[in-house]
């Protein structure tokens, strides 16, 4: 049979060292996995004004269109109405007006952020942790909130500083934001940044503090990072394609996060002690069972 056609819209830069890149990783992984079974068209760096046109072009040529990021949601909803026969998946989507051909995958960064907060609290020697987010969009803000809560869950007296630079990619700003937190005593930093992460790395390097990385587990590759929180943006891209290939693709809201298993969302502390491990597992379990309530997004 001729290959299934998949169109992917990455609003940011596919090499942003963060969300977009992780989504792109997922795409390349899927291409490896299914080889000739799928044919992919990809487009990146699309601003709002051009998004509809890009989506329309993709929707016209492909069976499945994946929008990587919540910011594509509004446009996708609009275009989906015009292309009822095309399937749409929004990575980082939310409960939207349930169109029959749109699936919203909720990354639930907040869940893992809570766990990350807990881990940070365990790893912090100074009893102060910090978080730097890019834009103030809910998923980012909620993650920040939950990170704080998670830390407090382990150590009620923990000091917590959060900051939003308004730009996922601005290195200078995220560096200064981190330095400010360090000056307040923070020694473990969490983030949802893209290119901006490099700024945080530099700050930590200069001041000898540590970072909890995100998206993929790279333990041991860099001493600066003492833990990684895995949020499967890539996994969800892969998932959408897998479902399509298997003919199981379904519309509607789908919460990911811990419920979908470690590939979707997990917490890795590099060289963690057994009790740390168990504690974190416990927390994850409590979240899944709803003993611990966390925000969505």
């Amino acid at each position, binding site marked *: 049979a001729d290959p299934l056609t998949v*169109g992917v819209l990455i609003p940011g830069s596919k090499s942003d060292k963060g969300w977009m890149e992780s989504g792109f990783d997922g795409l390349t992984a899927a291409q490896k996995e299914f080889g000739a079974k799928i044919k992919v*068209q*990809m*487009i*990146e*760096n*699309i*601003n*709002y*004004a*051009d998004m*509809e*046109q*890009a989506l*329309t*072009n*993709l929707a*016209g*040529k492909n069976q499945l269109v994946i929008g990587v990021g*919540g*910011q594509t*949601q*509004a446009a996708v909803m*609009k275009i989906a109405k*015009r292309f009822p026969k095309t399937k749409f998946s929004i990575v980082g989507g*939310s*409960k939207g007006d349930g169109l029959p051909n749109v699936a919203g995958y*909720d990354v639930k960064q*907040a869940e893992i952020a809570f766990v990350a907060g807990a881990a940070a609290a365990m790893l912090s020697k100074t009893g102060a942790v910090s978080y730097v987010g890019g*834009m*103030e*969009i*809910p*998923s980012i803000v*909620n993650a920040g909130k939950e990170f704080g809560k998670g830390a407090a869950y382990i150590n009620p007296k923990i000091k917590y500083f959060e900051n939003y630079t*308004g730009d996922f990619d601005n290195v200078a700003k995220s560096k200064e934001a981190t330095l400010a937190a360090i000056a307040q005593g923070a020694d473990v930093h969490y983030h949802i940044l893209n290119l901006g992460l490099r700024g945080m790395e530099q700050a930590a390097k200069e001041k000898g503090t540590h970072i909890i990385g995100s998206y993929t587990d790279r333990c041991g590759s860099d001493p600066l990072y003492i833990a990684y929180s895995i949020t499967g943006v890539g996994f969800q891209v892969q998932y959408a394609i897998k479902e399509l290939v298997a003919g199981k693709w379904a519309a509607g809201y789908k919460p990911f996060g811990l419920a979908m298993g470690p590939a979707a969302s997990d917490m890795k502390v590099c060289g963690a002690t057994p009790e740390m491990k168990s504690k974190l597992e416990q927390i994850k379990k409590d979240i899944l069972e709803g003993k611990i309530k966390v*925000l*969505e*997004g």
Partner: protein
Amino acid sequence: MSTLLIKQPAALLAFLKARPAMWIAFLAVAAALLIGLLLVHLIGVPIGDAVAAFAEGAWGSPYAIAASINRSLVFALVGLGFVLADRANLTNVGGEGQIAIGGIVATAVSLYGHVSDLPFGLAFLLPLLAASLAGGLWGGLAGVLKARAGTNEVIATLLLSFIAVWMVYGSVQSVALLRQPMTHSNTLPESLEIPDPTKLPLLTDDYSMPLHSGLLFGFALAIVVALVLNKTVFGLRLRAVGLNPLAARRAGIAISASVVGVLFAAGALGGLAGACMLQGEQYSLKAGFSSGYGFDGLVVGLLARGSVVGVIAGALLFGFLRSGGINMEMVAAVPTALVVVIQGLIIVILAGAALSMQRWEVER
């Protein structure tokens, strides 16, 4: 048969010979595109594929054409504003901000101005009007600063742009302003979609070719601006103000009023452009909705060198270029960065060719 083939280019040549300036502009763009293709080749993409993809994306389908033209409209409106102010020797680089303000106001009025039920298309006309007004005030502000404090308008409009863009960001951050109600914790920081009556009616029957009625305003205004610049006393006075304010004042022309007025007009055109983007295409306000179109419009205006025809030509060029670029990347996997490079080349080469164009025009 063969004669037919020859005739057409011959006709084109004759046409261009009659208009040397256009001839040079044409060459400049061609040169830029050629260099672009060369780069495409160097990147390792078969040129044939790239060109095909470009053509398809730019004018390959009714939708593509409409999308390109809608985009050109925005560029053109901003560009018109630019040449208008330029006549008084004022450089309005504030298009981006004027678009942003226009967008905010258009959204606010459409959503909360109780206009949806009004008859005679007032439902979408009022938001357009309000947006133009707001954009005008935003531009006029730079004029006031210039008249009062002698503030350089380049910097004033530029700063006002940055501020306006972040105002959009702020206005969709809080529910108290334009953000949609927080139905749950990760409601996106965007406005609600504006009600249907406030959307600009399509000139076509459906979205297979979403040309919207903003285009009509565009045409009308292009004609008006052309008249003002070339045929009216006001246009001549603006020129005097631009060339020698002192002498103009001596001759009884009100300098401050002219400066504020013309920047207001430019701003209004920018605001209208913003409203068109929002009411004609995007329908809901998001941080960064202006998408840098204000700066593209500025470039269009700069390259037009005072001519309305130039504005329209430039706007169409950039509008279609962008459409083609999107598709080139999608289908032929030509990196967006390369499309950016090509756009930069066109600007630089056209700018460089401007002098020789002037020479030609002087000759005639």
